[in-house]
């Protein structure tokens, strides 16, 4: 029973982490290697707003998300827009920005393990004999709610449809009068906000540490690849797949194989089905 409960929790947290990355890659084909940095900087900015400026927790969340979205948009507008297309420079560019943000935070004194965010609700209850704390349940609910909102957003709103159009075929979207750079900036901003939401949900469980930035980047790449680069629906399904395999390995094989399994999943998926579960792999099924 606890496998199911903690499996879903682990999977939802993986899905939250990966959603931002999948959104950005889906729309603008830019692999955003600064995703981990956006995740962490949202945690720290929320901490600063709450502790240094004394604004209460609820508003500081929204303020931090807004700042994150702004950083994402600025990052795209001034740096990534010039290197779109040259995929090596994209990777290096976004990784360098991520590095600058993370190491800048570390230089700015955000070292050590004493920074954390308060939990939404204290205490825990027993579900089917398994003690689960409120915050994790809340995280699951918000996660599912977020996915539903995202689905509605991309299917029924103007911007959402434009983003999806861009994802399928950028040139066709251009022909229909969708300003691709604006859309890509918006996508990057949304990606940053999604990373921020993931941070504000997951970080209260532990503490805000710069290293988890790199860890989040690796895991979100893992999930997006298994789910098929570009399709965020695939990312969610893949998150559940990897989440449960991790929990199962911990229970049956041995907890220290947990990481090995996650990375093995990526390598196997790429070899067997490079386009992932849902992805439409353009290069491979090239028209002969």
């Amino acid at each position, binding site marked *: 029973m*606890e*496998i199911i409960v*903690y499996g879903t*929790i*682990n999977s939802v*947290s993986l899905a939250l982490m990966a959603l931002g990355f999948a959104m950005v890659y889906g729309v603008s084909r830019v692999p955003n290697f600064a995703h981990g940095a956006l995740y962490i900087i949202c945690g720290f900015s929320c901490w600063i707003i709450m502790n240094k400026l004394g604004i209460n927790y609820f508003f500081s969340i929204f303020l931090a998300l807004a700042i994150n979205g702004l950083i994402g948009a600025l990052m795209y507008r001034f740096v990534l827009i010039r290197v779109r297309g040259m995929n090596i420079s994209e990777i290096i560019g976004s990784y360098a920005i991520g590095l600058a943000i993370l190491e800048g935070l*570390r230089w700015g004194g955000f*070292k*050590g*393990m*004493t*920074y*954390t965010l*308060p*939990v939404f609700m204290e*205490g*825990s209850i027993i579900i089917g004999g*398994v*003690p689960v*704390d409120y915050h994790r349940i809340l995280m699951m609910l918000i996660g599912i709610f977020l996915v539903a909102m995202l689905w509605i957003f991309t299917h029924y709103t103007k911007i959402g449809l434009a983003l999806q159009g861009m994802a399928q075929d950028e040139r066709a979207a251009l022909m229909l009068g969708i300003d691709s750079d604006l859309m890509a900036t918006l996508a990057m901003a949304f990606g940053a906000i999604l990373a921020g939401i993931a941070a504000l949900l*997951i970080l209260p*469980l*532990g*503490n805000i*540490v*710069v*290293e*988890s930035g*790199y*860890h989040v980047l690796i895991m979100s790449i893992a999930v997006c690849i298994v789910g098929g680069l570009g399709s965020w629906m695939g990312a969610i399904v893949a998150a559940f797949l990897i989440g449960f395999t991790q*929990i199962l390995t*911990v*229970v049956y094989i*041995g*907890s*220290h194989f*947990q*990481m090995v399994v996650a990375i093995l999943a990526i390598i196997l998926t790429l070899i067997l089905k490079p386009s992932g579960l849902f992805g439409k792999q353009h290069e491979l099924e090239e028209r002969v």
Partner: protein
Amino acid sequence: MKCIKSTFLFTLFAAITFGFFTSHAYAKKSIIIGAPLSTAYLYGWDAERGIKLAVDEINAKGGVNVAGEKRPFKVEVIDTRDLEPGVPVSEALMALERLILNKKADFILGGPNRSEAALAAMSLLSKHKKVSIVTSGVLTPKYHALVAQKYDKFKYCFRIHGEAKGIVGDMLANFMELKEKHGLTKIFLIAQDVSHARGAAKVMGKVAGSKGFEITGTEIFPTGTTDFSMGLLKAKSTGSQIINIWMDMPESAILLKQWYDLKIPALPFGGTLAAAEQPGFWKATNGRGEFTLCNVINAGNAPSDATPWTMKFYNAYAKKWGVEPEGLGSSSSYMAVYTLKEAIERAGTLDSDKVVTALEQTDIMGVYGRLKFDPKSHQVIFAKDPKDGAVGSILQWQDGKRIVVFPKSIAKGEILLPPWMKK
């Protein structure tokens, strides 16, 4: 666009020239201590503060008299980044070499903090014949075993704080006490997937097993795990009463928070638990870290009166740095500077080999007991009583304060059990 390009190139040029100058402007007279530390980490900056505190005190009193001539200490700290994942150890070794070759360091204190880097640095130090005292973060028993094994090659390496085997000994004494008082016999081991933590957990399993404790399970978590629910639930289902934790990664705070939320009826007993050693731990877990026990290896890192010097150091540290001594590196680094000073004065020269022999006969009453080095393995000798050896100290978080509960000779309180365990 033109001006951005020129300003960018100008800042690059300024950075290079500035960097070049600082490395040449220092007086030849002072004795240079090189401190390769991972300054972005607890074990790094607490050692840096310990060393700087001791150096300031010694320089205030006139410095070290080397064969009659008074020479001040000068500290050169360099960031090795070796506790950061994804950074190759060769980065730390290059920093160490920069200290030795470029900054002309005479002695190395603090040493690289990661066990892996410290082991790698040993051959480098013996190549350059530099005396090095490791004071923070290196717990692997392999370190002093290697010194004993290849004495002539690694004789320049010393270690002034405890290591895994010593800690296991202290922990066992505690468990025996818990067994009599509260009848706790079932131990569940949780270790980080790092060789010194796994080694310590294995040794603990064997030794505790032979002493009548029942090992209900062992869980090894890779670095970077963010969910410990499975391990904790397994501990709860096997009815274990003590959870022995060997983990120095930041995610251990998640483990403790989950332990509190899931109300696991077992006492979290940290073998090495970096997160719980900091005074800021209470605020970080907003009170949910109560009853956690953790080992700070040497007495000075928590308020206790092991020796008259302990509280003097404790208050001097708090006054200078505005925070109580934290982590396991502060008192040991402080003592390392004093031991080095005393050894240089006895040896009367800076020559490495003479200082090594002088260090081997060290016998001074330090912050955490009488410091003597084992001549063969250059490992500080541990004891239960401050009068005849270096003393470890285990503390428990009791409503916001760190109370030393072991060893008995310097204890200030008793081990308490969480309310949901007292059925």
